[in-house]
């Protein structure tokens, strides 16, 4: 996936090229849904958010300038939208814990055996529990780094933060998640982050 090609597709979308936009959508829909899911915890609501994010993206396509990488621009839009959603107070990551029982009945994708499914679910639970104790920005920085593979510089741009701040956010979040996973592996309760 060429970042320059994404920028070119976005510029064409700004000129009304819906086919170009649909290519962009196909390339990035999973990332955006996954990102939204880290905030609202509910797959259906995450898809609704993703839909709103992409429509917002298309509406503002004419204003897009390729001064930043397209992915950075995309996640800036997504981050702001998810933050607004969370601050409206309708969805909090804590709610996910209450929905954990419901999610447990749904088959997990990419898991081939029941044991793998259980292990995957437990790991997901440990990560989710750690993320619940984090601030929204820590959660965002962590998601963009760990799940989208974005560089600290690009994350800083997406979150309108300094690189030093992003480094600190990612360290605190990763350490919290690491301790939670360690507790899972040792069979104990997830540890709270010291920071």
């Amino acid at each position: 996936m060429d970042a320059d090609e994404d920028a070119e597709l976005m510029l064409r979308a700004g000129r009304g090229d819906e086919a170009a936009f649909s290519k962009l959508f196909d390339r990035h829909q999973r990332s955006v849904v996954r990102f939204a899911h880290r905030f609202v915890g509910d797959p259906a609501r995450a898809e609704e958010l993703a839909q709103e994010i992409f429509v917002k993206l298309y509406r503002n396509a004419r204003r897009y300038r390729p001064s930043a990488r397209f992915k950075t621009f995309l996640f800036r839009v997504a981050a702001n939208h998810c933050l607004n959603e969370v601050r409206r107070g309708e969805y909090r990551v804590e709610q996910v814990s209450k929905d954990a029982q419901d999610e447990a009945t749904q088959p997990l994708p990419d898991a081939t055996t029941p044991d793998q499914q259980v292990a995957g679910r437990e790991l997901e639970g440990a990560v989710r529990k750690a993320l619940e104790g984090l601030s929204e920005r820590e959660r965002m920085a962590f998601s963009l780094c760990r799940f989208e593979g974005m560089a600290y510089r690009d994350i800083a741009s997406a979150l309108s933060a300094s690189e030093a701040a992003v480094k600190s956010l990612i360290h605190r979040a990763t350490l919290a998640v690491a301790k939670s996973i360690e507790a899972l592996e040792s069979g104990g309760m997830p540890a709270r982050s010291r920071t």
Partner: protein
Amino acid sequence: MSCAFETELTAYIDGELKELDARRVAEHLPHCAECLATESLLRRAVSRLAELPELEPSPALRRQVLTRVGALPKGPLDWLGRKLKVRVLVPFAGLAVACGLLLVLRHGGAPKALPPLTASARLELARNFDLVDNYAVIGLDGPEDLAVVEHLQELEKTP
């Protein structure tokens, strides 16, 4: 108390430190058991995150997004074209015609310009200007009102 290098460890693992800073951390690690343990913990967590199941979007999402995008106006002219449909244009045109007719009817009985006054008429008007002014204030509508005013004026004259 945590080591001062601890906050650098995640960036070190992610390859995000400048070369000099990365070298300092690398040189520090063999001499600090705490940082070594934390670095190992972080690396393990990062590798385990790759095992997390990925959420797959439903096929409906694509259809919903592209449908909504397709329904958006392409520009100001397109927006105008979408609004000027027959079922929208006809009622508005009818309303515009009705408003126009109403305006014409209301202003059809507008007072025409008065003919120029003769000199004697002007004198008469000037003599009675106060009276005319008073009549306008109290809103005379007919002869009965005039009779009332006459009596009022009589009352004003009596000491």
